[in-house]
């Protein structure tokens, strides 16, 4: 497997008034293609900063970041946007769906800013099908449960066939069982499509779904080791989907 993400001596300094905040103080790590990695750490540890830089939302103050052979530190705003569009899919804790827009339109959003060809509609529907949401593509977010909204968000992250999915506390707003279903989807995407998945979390249970846990503390990497006793979200995506439907039927 090739090295997808290579980070060397990354530092990030924020200036808050007169005070300089060192969010990252020299982080080096390598993530290979197809890995499922969890970045853990308490709030204020610098894990969000690290995620933002890896996700090309932010630039490091110093150090080198190589993503898929491209030196990210040299890119301008537009090139960063293009990388985010083409190579990275984001999943957020708060789903971040456009409220007045159907699931289908939400999933089509990244394709508005650059797509890989083919019909937007069909590709969005395929992405929704991959997360078991094809039946509800015309629903708006407020007509969907939290778990369903997060699935739509995952479909949106998938639609441009990214190399990496970055999930920032993806189960943070969900109950345990729904969270488990969502983790199952990530594991399936990682296993079957070979998409590199980076989870950012402070929950140990969530991190245990990855193959490798990178711990960040005080702006440096405090630990980087394979997961012992990895949790495999038992159900396949299909099963999860049926289960979700069954739950909905009970609910309605």
């Amino acid at each position: 497997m090739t090295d997808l993400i290579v980070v060397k001596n990354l530092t990030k300094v924020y200036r808050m008034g007169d005070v300089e905040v060192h969010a990252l103080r020299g982080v080096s790590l390598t993530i290979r293609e197809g890995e499922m990695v969890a970045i853990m750490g308490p709030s204020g540890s610098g894990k969000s900063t690290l995620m933002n830089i890896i996700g090309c939302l932010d630039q490091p103050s110093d150090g080198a970041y190589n993503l898929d052979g491209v030196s990210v530190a040299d890119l301008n705003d537009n090139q960063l946007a293009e990388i985010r569009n083409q190579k990275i899919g984001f999943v957020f804790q708060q789903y971040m769906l456009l409220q007045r827009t159907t699931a289908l339109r939400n999933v089509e959003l990244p394709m508005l800013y650059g797509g890989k060809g083919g019909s937007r509609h069909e590709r969005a529907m395929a992405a929704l099908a991959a997360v078991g949401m094809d039946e509800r593509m015309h629903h708006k977010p407020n007509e969907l449960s939290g778990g369903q909204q997060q699935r739509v968000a995952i479909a949106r992250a998938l639609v441009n066939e990214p190399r990496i999915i970055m999930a920032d506390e993806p189960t943070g707003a969900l109950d345990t069982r729904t969270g488990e279903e969502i983790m199952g989807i990530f594991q399936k995407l990682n296993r079957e499509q070979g998409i590199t998945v980076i989870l950012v979390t402070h929950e140990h249970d969530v991190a245990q779904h990855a193959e490798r846990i990178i711990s960040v503390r005080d702006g440096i990497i405090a630990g980087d080791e394979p997961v012992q006793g990895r949790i495999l979200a038992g159900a396949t995506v299909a099963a999860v989907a049926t289960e979700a439907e069954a739950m909905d039927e009970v609910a309605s």
Partner: protein
Amino acid sequence: MALLESFRIAWGAMLTHKLRSLLTMLGIIIGVGAVVGMLAIGEGYSRYIDAEFNSLGVGTFYVNPSVDRDADDETLRPQLTAANAATLMEPGRAPAIDLVVIELNRNGVVSAGGERFLFGVKGVTPGFFTIGAQELGDGRYFTDEEDLASARVAVIGQNVAETLFGGIEGSVGQRITVNGVQFEVIGVSVAQQSQISGAFGRFSDPGEQVYLPYRTARDRLFRNDVTTRVDVSSLTVRARDVDLIDEAIRQVTEVLREEHRLTYQANDFRITNPAQLSAQFQAITVGFSAFLGTIGGISLLVGGIGIMNIMLVSVAQRTREIGLRKAVGAKRRDILLQFLIEALVLCLAGGAIGIGLGYLLSFGGTFVLYTISQDPNIRASVSLFSIILATSISASIGIFFGLFPAIRAARLDPIRALRNE
């Protein structure tokens, strides 16, 4: 990002906040409405004035025997005669003119055998009936020969015909007396009174007149009422061409001064040029337009600021959406364009409603114009030009006032935008 998609989003955003959008657009609506209405009514009024002056006769002006009261020379007395009219028409004297009409205006006791009525009596040369908006209801006008022969023929106005004979029908061929002299009615005039003729002291309603050949009136009716200095009420002079009117006035002045043997003295006649008055009337249009234009301009400015304000609110409310769009690959340009198009759509929608308002104003204007002109052809109509103008103004406002909020949105840092609560 596809432009069409931006327009779709903008349209959706506008419909989502219908009331807010409408209130935001109000300034644009009023501004565009005022501008469109102004152009429509101004154009209609201008056409009305043109029509009114055309009804007085295109390229004509008047000469009256009249002395400026402020003149220092108290010995100067008014002078104007039929002989002057003849001189003016002599070849080579005033080449810029092609017609001089003599009018002698008096009142007379008119009767058809029974009751006697007081009507206006106009002695005119036949050229009178070729100037302005003349219309014959029945019969014919009199001829030059009849004028030269002092023939006892009359053309009567509509009201005269109704008073004497109960209608136009059957009037022709009847006999009437004017101040005891017998005349044969040969025609009935149905000319309408011009709205602005009063501006020239011509308050007489053409329907209330008895028209006689000038020489008949002078020699047979008012012989004791004319002098060798003044035997006409006015001369109506027509220039060979509308553009020659100033030249014609100059030539007529020169000829008359020569004939009246004036050297250093002021004129003992007065020339009135309706075209000058027309210009004054048109100036009213300009003033009116400036007034509505100012209202429109201020409304558009206020409307533009309203648009800017609401777009800033919209950017603030949708900070997270902007962050998300950036996270999934929107470039600055995409965000800029999206918000710019939103402002544009707001303004264009406001402009469209404003054009509708302009139509309403123009209907109102048409009603008013019709009320004063009684002419269905005089209407305030919204022109294609004003629609294009209104649309471009709206679009410019959208772009101008939408630019700042859009730049602000485009410059948002995606991380902070995503965190925004």
